[in-house]
């Protein structure tokens, strides 16, 4: 019970940081909204999707997934900063549950994602995004997105505790997330890619997430269904399995790493 309370206090800290530095929240939302607008108007005109509603219908799930994938970087750099400032030492010297700090941070970052996704959803609606599947499916879609972000923030914890410097953390997170989001079906069909990349793109968790969200938002997943492979046939199940795998691996190793931080 006290472990739960400790965790909530850390999560509260995360949220208080947002109220003290509103810029963080503002820029965390401006960036994805900017992506929505850029992709919608730069590529939207020249990509023919053959579906009613146009490119923006396919684009929005892609950008949602990209945004939650970047949670990894946010979690990692926040934690690296705490480590550098010696805050982690203080937390570790307190008589609190040793996992409270990392669990609290992952939860706090997920709450930030709720706000960011809501703002993006509104921006998407303004530029013509209209999910057609019904409220329940859309809600499940967003829960899926939040869960994916949550799983990746555990990778972020590991990265943040492993790197020696906040700038390195930035770069490492970027190197992990950027290829994953672009070697996927998020913005363009994978069918135009070289064969080897197509395989990668189809099995890429970002692609399966995007495909799952497209399904949940009432679209047929056109981008990337090349070979009738398992992940493109069953994106929901595949994504779910990916999230479980990521958490099963990264929660224990990140908590272990935290307990031995700077050992």
């Amino acid at each position, binding site marked *: 019970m006290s472990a739960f*309370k400790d965790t909530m206090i850390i999560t*509260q*800290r995360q949220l*208080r940081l947002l109220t003290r530095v509103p810029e963080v929240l503002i820029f965390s939302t401006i960036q994805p909204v900017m992506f929505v607008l850029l992709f919608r108007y730069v590529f939207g005109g020249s990509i023919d999707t053959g579906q009613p509603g146009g490119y923006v219908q396919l684009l929005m799930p892609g950008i949602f997934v990209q945004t939650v994938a970047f949670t990894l970087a946010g979690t990692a750099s926040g934690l690296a900063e705490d480590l550098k*400032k010696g805050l982690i030492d*203080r937390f570790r*010297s*307190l008589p*609190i549950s040793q996992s409270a700090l990392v669990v609290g941070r992952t939860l706090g970052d997920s709450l930030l994602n709720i706000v960011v996704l809501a703002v993006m959803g509104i921006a998407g609606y303004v530029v013509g995004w209209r999910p057609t599947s019904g409220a329940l499916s859309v809600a499940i879609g967003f829960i899926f997105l939040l869960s994916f972000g949550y799983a990746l923030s555990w990778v972020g914890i590991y990265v943040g505790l492993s790197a020696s410097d906040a700038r390195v953390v930035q770069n490492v997170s970027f190197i992990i997330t950027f290829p994953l989001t672009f070697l996927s079906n998020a913005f363009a069909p994978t069918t135009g890619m070289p064969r080897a990349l197509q395989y990668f793109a189809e099995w890429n968790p970002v692609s399966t997430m995007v495909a799952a969200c497209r399904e949940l938002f009432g679209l047929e997943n056109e981008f990337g269904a090349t070979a009738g492979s398992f992940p493109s046939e069953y994106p929901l199940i595949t994504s779910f399995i990916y999230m479980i795998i990521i958490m099963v691996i990264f929660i224990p190793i990140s908590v272990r790493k935290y307990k031995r931080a*700077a050992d």
Partner: protein
Amino acid sequence: MKSVIAEDLVKTYRNGAVRALDHLSLDVEEGTVLSVLGPNGAGKTTCVRILATLLRPDSGHAMVGGIDVIKHPEKVREVIGLSGQYAAVDEILTGWDNLVMFGQLYHLGKKEAIARADELLERFSLTESAKRPIKTYSGGMRRRLDLAASLIVKPKVLFLDEPTTGLDPRGRQEMWSVIEELVKGGVTLLLTTQYLEEADQLADEIAVIDHGKVIARGTSDALKKQVGGERLEIVVEAHNIAKAMEVVATISGNKATLDEGLRMISAPVSTGATALIETLRSLDLAGIHPLDVGLKRPSLDDVFLSLTGHAAEETNEEEVTTGRRKKAKK
């Protein structure tokens, strides 16, 4: 009763390539202040981190407040306070936010945490800046807040790792008076420092460490005695040097040494002020008027130099004691 006991602690980094602690042993009597004095890289921070449960030693034992640090770290955390070289508080949050948050993490109720935060802010003269973010604080204010955060639940044993490193003289003075105040309150304190005068000022006992071992320990006075008693120093005009050296040697009973540049003659004496008076009388009889004269007690600098063969402020190797973290700028 001993509040802190460290026995034979060994800690190596990089697979044994760097030996931060080399069979280090020390103890602190309840209610007293031990200062661990040593240059950068001597192992001070590693020692504190082990005692504060942040680091596991490769071998050795440690007890804090009667609890085994390695077997029951979670119980040790309930009785200690730690304040490090870095002000380990959240810079974005206000001083008040920080103290309330840490209070809650110490499982005080919200009301209690607030009351305690207000009390500590008052005590450390931070009430006026309570609602400002820490990043607007001066170095001294940050350290005081950090110290306040380590005192939330009135720890039995307090570890202060270089509490004044990087502070300006005023900040250091403020910090010293805060620490002296605490010590009067009866806390057991283990304090590390690379400043000799700090150890002299605050500690009941000093443990000098170098290359991961305690190389000497005792009270400040005892350590000074270990180096030798007082020294008589006189400065005379150049043409009087030879004669004055004779006088000083006679009274001291030891060989007098000369610093030619300063024209300063010095020699160890055992009778203190009496030797000084005798010297002045003899010099007067010989018609020599010294330009300067004095008795000098050995400083802790002298202690360090004679114990280690190098000066205390010397940075002899890369700071490895904080593990991966980079050393703060000097």
